[in-house]
């Protein structure tokens, strides 16, 4: 089966700001793919090019076999995709049910309105005017509007931003449920744990480029394969005196030793200290968390060209 989305060498600038600089990826049918990255990384720009809202400067894009920039096929494509945009905007004076029923009328074979209300976690709010919904409930309605047309492909731009932790879990549950129905999903997020909880594959974006990609386990695994041993350097000794070789001393006075064989390395270090009657104060052994991996990836990429870094 052909891929649901293919993107190759996609680029887009806004004046001098090069928001997307030649990215490529594919999303298979039924797959959940996450674009992960900090503010201004170019996630929304990428998504909105795929959704047909924005033009592109260079590269090839195909969504369910269509070019989203082609106006002639726009309606057919939109009948098959669902969109949850980054900003919330819903008609304030209609009720939840009316809003969903209105949009259902736009699609040839919509989902049942009651079913979507249940799916989006809006049961009991059917007759509430949209203006009286809390921010999180509005976002759920937004999600419901993305689902109402029973799409083959769903775009979610930061679907859980502004959710409380339990609403976030609920939203994850909805997304997993959709995967069960065979819906392909492309989502963006700032949160590593969200990408890890939902996505089959992740691309980490920073400064308009994809700086890492893989399954959530791969991404986490790359650097967490290395254990990190940290301790305060004994007085009168330099990092170069250590038997294992060590990175420089950090601002907090701790040295870090990275190793893929922590048992041996630790033995060498403690042996070295005991031989000299020293103690290794504040000794810890740990592995970088996913969050550390993510910060490492996006931090270095952004630092490569500080001029073009967004302050949004």
């Amino acid at each position, binding site marked *: 089966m052909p891929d649901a989305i293919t993107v190759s060498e996609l680029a887009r600038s*806004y004046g001098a700001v090069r928001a997307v600089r030649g990215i490529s990826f594919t999303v298979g049918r039924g797959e959940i793919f996450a674009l992960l990255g900090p503010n201004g990384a170019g996630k929304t720009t990428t998504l909105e090019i795929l*959704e047909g*809202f*924005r033009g592109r400067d260079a590269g090839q894009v195909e969504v369910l076999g269509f070019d989203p920039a082609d106006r002639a096929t726009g*309606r*057919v494509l*939109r*009948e098959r995709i669902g*969109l949850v*945009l980054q*900003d*919330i*905007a*819903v*008609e*304030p*004076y*209609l009720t939840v049910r*009316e809003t969903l029923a*209105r*949009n259902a*009328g*736009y*699609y*040839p074979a919509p989902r049942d309105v009651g079913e979507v209300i249940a799916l989006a976690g809006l049961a009991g709010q059917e007759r509430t*005017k949209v203006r009286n919904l809390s921010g999180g409930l509005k976002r759920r309605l937004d999600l419901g*509007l993305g689902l109402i*047309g029973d799409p083959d492909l769903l775009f979610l731009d930061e679907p859980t931003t502004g959710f409380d932790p339990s609403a976030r879990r609920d939203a994850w549950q909805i997304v997993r449920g959709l995967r069960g129905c065979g819906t392909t999903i492309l989502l963006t997020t700032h949160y590593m744990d969200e990408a890890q909880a939902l996505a089959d594959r992740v691309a980490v974006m920073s400064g308009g480029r994809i700086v890492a990609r893989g399954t959530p386990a791969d991404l986490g695994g790359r650097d967490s394969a290395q254990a990190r041993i940290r301790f305060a350097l004994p007085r009168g000794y330099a990092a170069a005196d250590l038997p294992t070789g060590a990175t420089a001393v950090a601002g907090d006075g701790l040295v870090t030793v990275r190793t893929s064989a922590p048992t041996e390395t630790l033995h060498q270090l403690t042996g070295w200290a005991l031989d000299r009657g020293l103690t290794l104060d504040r000794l810890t052994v740990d592995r970088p968390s996913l969050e550390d991996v993510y910060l490492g990836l996006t931090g270095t990429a952004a630092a490569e060209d500080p001029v073009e870094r967004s302050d949004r």
Partner: protein
Amino acid sequence: MSTATSRASRRDLALVWHQIRYEQLSFWRNPQSAFFTFVFPVVIITLFGAMFGGVGRSSYFYGLSALQYYVPTIAAVSVLGACYSQLAIVLSTRRQNGMLKRVRATPLPAWAYFLGLLAHCLVVSVVDIALIVGVGRLFGVPLPTQWAAAGAALVLGAASFCALGVAVASVIRNAEAAPAVVQLVLFPLVFISGTYLPIHSGVLDRIAGWLPVRPFNQALLGSFAQHTGVDWKDLGVLLAWGAAGALVAVWRFRWDPRAG
């Protein structure tokens, strides 16, 4: 093939009807928009009724009584409000808060969305005119005589002023500026077109005759009170302005709040 086409067009027809219903629902639910659209013209015609109710036929009002003159001109200005002003403001607000972009995210075709709005504006205009004619009747103004000509003028005028409203919404970027821009264009036009005071200046009348408001006033005056039927030149000028507005709208209209 032809059955498929007819099925598709039946679906489109149902779609437009669906859109009109929800456009109406949103409007009537919003207390502000419903209030301002109807209250202003009704207050004006009631005030004029109280002030000029006793002013009989005079050459100043082209041989009509004051209220016979004002019922059609205030009806015209209420259509301007319901179509031109309302659309320009509603569309720029909806664009700014992202609601237009949401519409664009669905398969609803642009033409169906705009047909829904046009039908909505027409409904509001008809209600407005009925209210104004009703108040006029209370002050003894006879009902309009030439319904067909009045209907033709109304439909053409409403469509043209809707097109101009969309054009203005296409040109202004900022929703906060919309009411000011709308009034800035409308006020002098309404004034020189004799809406509130008959203009007895050949030069001014000729200039205003080529702008959109006066021809609409004249078309309603002719069919409501003067029994002169359809004036093709007036309708032609209206149509030309409507077409110009539609061109600007098609060329410049944006759904996205952000440029790009």
